[in-house]
């Protein structure tokens, strides 16, 4: 029990009434060990941010139990809130204040008597020392994000929640934030719960991942555990001439063959072993294009949910979801 930083048991969040409300989270149970970077991966509207709101005490849990840093989120809210840090999806700082004044305010809010040394250390770590007296409204997005992470670390929290830490950032800033998250986890030894809808982000940063869709956690595991759930490689083949599907299906190891005109999808246990057999059957000059898709979190997500993480289908669901939430809130 002591090794668990975050534990939820069947937590449910419903906006509005039981009859007409919207179920944002449906009996979510997770156990996140101390010292891990746990990623909640799912499309927009899946319930990721709602889970963070419940765990940080910003929204009330409809039913179920949750413990963070050893304390009950509902009954020991103040104890939880003094042990967690939070990094918002949109950077939230006081723009009228300097970096140092933002740290001062955070220290006040966390009731820290001796915070200056730690604040100086964090500013050095995030390479913001020379800008500490500048108003944060003059900071770049990357600097603002770094300061926000520094605020979250000021009181030496046990757990940090990062809600979509790289949403809306350009590629280089995103890479920088990835390095920071990894560095922060290593240097400061905190447990990190981050949400993302970027598959490569979850893959790059997280020790463990929970795949969330329509308010339910469908699978949890390390990235490699999740990928091993999808054992097949998919060979995408485009031929110059029509191929007889019977010839392809007859090849040893073929699990499934799908065709659309001269484009083929062949599912096999191992592309490495299958490709020589394929080339022995079809002459290579008949092949216009060939590629292999190996198990990735993208294919895992597709297999588990039936849709791709960024497809239009969930976007329609999200619009519907928010429309329902608005109606439920009146």
């Amino acid at each position: 029990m002591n090794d668990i930083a975050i534990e939820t048991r069947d937590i449910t969040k419903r906006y509005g009434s039981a009859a007409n409300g919207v179920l944002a989270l449906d009996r979510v149970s997770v156990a996140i060990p101390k010292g891990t970077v746990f990623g909640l991966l799912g499309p927009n509207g899946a319930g990721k941010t709602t889970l963070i709101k419940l765990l940080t005490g910003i929204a009330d849990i409809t039913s179920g139990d949750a413990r963070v840093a050893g304390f009950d989120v509902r009954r020991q809210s103040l104890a939880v809130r003094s042990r967690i840090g939070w990094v918002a999806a949109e950077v939230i700082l006081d723009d009228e204040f300097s970096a140092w004044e933002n740290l001062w305010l955070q220290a006040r809010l966390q009731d820290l008597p001796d915070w200056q040394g730690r604040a100086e250390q964090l500013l050095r770590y995030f390479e913001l020392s020379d800008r500490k007296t500048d108003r944060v409204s003059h900071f770049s997005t990357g600097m603002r994000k770094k300061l926000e992470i520094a605020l979250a670390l000021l009181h030496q929290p046990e757990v940090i929640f990062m809600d979509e830490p790289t949403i809306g950032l350009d590629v280089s800033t995103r890479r920088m934030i990835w390095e920071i998250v990894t560095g922060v986890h290593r240097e400061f030894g905190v447990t990190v719960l981050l949400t993302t809808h970027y598959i490569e982000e979850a893959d790059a940063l997280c020790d463990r991942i929970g795949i969330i869709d329509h308010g339910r956690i469908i699978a949890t595991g390390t990235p490699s555990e999740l990928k091993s759930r999808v054992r097949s490689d998919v060979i995408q083949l485009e031929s110059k001439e029509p191929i007889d599907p019977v010839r392809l299906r007859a090849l040893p190891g073929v699990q499934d063959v799908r065709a659309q005109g001269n484009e083929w999808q062949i599912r096999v246990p191992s592309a490495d072993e299958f490709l020589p057999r394929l080339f022995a059957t079809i002459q290579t000059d008949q092949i216009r294009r060939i590629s292999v898709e190996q198990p990735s979190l993208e294919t895992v997500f597709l297999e588990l949910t039936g849709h791709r993480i960024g497809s239009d289908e969930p976007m329609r669901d999200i619009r519907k979801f928010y429309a329902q939430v608005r109606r439920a809130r009146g």
Partner: protein
Amino acid sequence: MRSQLWGLYLREVVRTFRNPFVLLLTVVQPFMWLAFFGSGFSQFAKEAASEFGTSNYIAFLLPGVLSTSMLSVGMFGSMSTIQDKRFGFMKRILITPTSKEVIFLSKAFGAATRGLVQIPVMVAAALAFGVTFSLSPLEWAVWVLALLFGAIGFSSMFLAITASSTDWQTPGVVSNFITMPLMFSSAALYPSSGFPVWMQWISKFNPISYSAEFGRSLVLGSGIVWVDLGYLALFAGVMLTIGYFVSARWLRVE
């Protein structure tokens, strides 16, 4: 709680002083009343000096205008709260061991402090308009205290009414709804002796009347009316208590 309250209160004050436009507006609005309403009405007041208790209408008006200004600063407290909700800062505050009640107190005291900024400027303006002051230090102190009570009471009232709102327009609408009736049914701009009976009843309970008459008694040399000060302290206390509990229950985070 003290640490959080002091931090958030100072944030309110610092933000006010770093925004010269807001500061200017805070001071200019009551000054306009003094300059335009005061000057426009002074001849009439001179003719009815027995009703007004003085022939200098600006001396009569100053405590009234300062009292109604304490009402309007409440709106700024609400606007600042709604801004924090809209920009997510409320979440940043609440994901720390800070309670909603502390946020309410910081906003109420912050708005009240902003209101007090008006006092020296308005007194200086009244001096320029020819008003003479012969108040003792104690009288100055209790006058400021009375205005502070009014400001705390009204800002608490505004914050309680708008606790669950996230709409920018709400404080303005509430202000229009509250300010006009409270201002015109008080003794802030003219003596209440000429009111119809039903308005006199409203005026009897209206804190602006107490605040205006308390200040007027000091400016016109009649001394401290402790009962009025007591009423204003009670008003502040009741509103602060209501706002405290309303915020704990209904203050929306976003």
